[in-house]
């Protein structure tokens, strides 16, 4: 141990705030990045799953035909 | 159609050399630019205005201006080149001439080199010509002005060449102008450092030959590599559009 006491370890001869701030920011950012990466992975898996389930539901209903354009006037009522 | 009736294929007979093709590209860009002279003046006016901001915004004192003058002029020149880069390929992209450029049976990097040379003649070179006037306005001495002009003469083509890569990469994107600056400014830093450093060395009475040679080396490097990168980038951007 390079320090005589725990309080000496914390203050580090007055350099404590600098050292601890660095380590805090480092660990916070690393953690945020790591958790964020895990989360976005779960999120994408979740959204895929929902997509697949939606797909199977849709195919159960009916095989829809491709939409074709009719260019019919849409009646917009004025009153 | 039956096979007997099918005539023989006649392939394209001749082609022109790459140099003639480069001349064609260069001539067209020059012609287009001179049909729109106002656009030629814009980077120059911008250059002058940015330089004017420093005495107004920081200090009109002779000592400050003499010390910072070279840097101010270099930064202003860099920014006005940056400003003009957005147009390097954009109009050609919009009206379809860029497609036809890419489809010429010529090495694309040479055609881009020709376009970049035209761009430099229309922006970089006028800036160099204007520099002595502005140099006097920021109280640089004659020797410094001469060295500054020399560094800009070697440095601005590098700016155009590197800029061509950025312009090609951001072609057809939304907010391409801002993005272009973000991509390109970091790459401009070495040119800026050696450009202003050379003038600073000259002001201290040191020999500047070595520094100018180094700037020349930058130019050679940019001349050999940048057109290839810009050609690759251009193909990617066109493929996207």
């Amino acid at each position, binding site marked *: 141990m390079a320090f005589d006491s725990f309080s000496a370890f914390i203050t580090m001869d007055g350099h404590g705030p600098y050292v601890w701030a660095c380590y805090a920011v480092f660990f916070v950012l690393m953690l945020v990045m*790591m958790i964020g990466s895990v989360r976005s992975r779960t999120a994408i898996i979740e959204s*895929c*799953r929902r997509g*697949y389930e939606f797909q199977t539901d849709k195919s159960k209903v009916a095989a829809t035909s491709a939409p074709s354009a009719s260019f019919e006037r849409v009646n917009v009522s004025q009153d | 159609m039956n096979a007997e009736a099918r005539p023989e294929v006649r392939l394209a007979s001749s082609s022109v050399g790459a140099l003639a093709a480069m001349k064609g590209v260069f001539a067209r860009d020059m012609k287009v630019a001179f049909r729109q002279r106002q656009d030629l003046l814009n980077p120059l006016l911008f250059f002058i205005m940015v330089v004017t901001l420093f005495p107004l915004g920081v200090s009109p004192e002779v000592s400050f201006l003499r010390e910072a003058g070279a840097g101010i002029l270099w930064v202003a020149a860099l920014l006005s080149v940056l400003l003009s880069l957005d147009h390097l390929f954009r109009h050609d992209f919009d009206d379809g001439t860029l497609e036809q450029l890419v489809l010429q049976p010529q090495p694309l990097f040479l055609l881009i080199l020709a376009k970049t040379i035209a761009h430099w003649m229309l922006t970089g070179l006028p800036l160099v010509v204007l520099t002595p006037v502005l140099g006097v306005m920021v109280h640089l001495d004659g020797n410094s002005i001469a060295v500054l002009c020399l560094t800009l003469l070697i440095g601005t083509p590098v700016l155009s060449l590197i800029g061509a890569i950025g312009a090609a990469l951001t072609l057809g994107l939304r907010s391409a102008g801002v993005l272009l600056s973000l991509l390109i400014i970091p790459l401009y830093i070495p040119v800026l*450092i050696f450009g202003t*450093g050379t003038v600073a060395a000259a002001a201290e009475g040191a020999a500047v030959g070595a520094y100018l040679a180094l700037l020349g080396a930058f130019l050679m490097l940019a001349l050999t590599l940048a057109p290839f*990168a810009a050609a690759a*980038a251009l193909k990617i951007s066109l493929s*996207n559009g």
Partner: protein
Amino acid sequence: MWQFFHKLGSPKWFFGISARFMPWLLAGGVLLLMAGVVWGLAFAPKDYLQGNSYRIIFIHVPTAFMAQSIYIMMASAAVVTLVWRMKLADVFVKAVAPVGLVLTFLALFTGAVWGKPTWGTWWIWDARLTSMLILLFLYGGVIALDRAINDEKSAARAVAVLVLVGVVNIPIIKYSVEWWNTLHQPASFKLTEKPTMPPEMWVPLLLSVLGLYLIFGWLACIRMQTEILSREQRTRWVKEFVMRGRS
């Protein structure tokens, strides 16, 4: 050989193999990093010149080292993207660029905070910090370009060109910044130059560098997996993988 190369480029293959490595990468990385940091913070001797503030080195050097090596890795991947059009390579570039950005920022931040007790000022235009700042800009440019292009393939190839242009420039930038630095403030006090660093100092430093390297490996894997999943949503193997937990 060629077949192996193609297999290496297959996202599906990567997905399987990376899943096996990842727990080890994470566990090893965290263990080594913690060992290095705790040793460095509590047990390594005090520096006779800078006092305890030097203990920032145990995270400053690893982040700075990683920030640079990630860019080099991205450049190698960019070559693979442009030459062989391997899908995995552009997935890699896209996945790790933000990690590089964060680590570069951390290197800058720790450097600046270290500067305060050492030089008495938060920011000094020191050659190292300045080139780190420029590296931060380069990372920012890469990410911005990637975001700006909608089409995945075009984005990957445009980014690859940009990364390569950047990597050609990095030595030039470094050299010019160092030259500029000596021009403006000759013989300044250097941060880390200690040719005779005792083993009690460099061993924990080595540990934390290795640890961060492994954690980066884990981050790269998981982020690449995310990217692969989103790109290959419509393939059968992703569907099987996603629906495995169900039914």
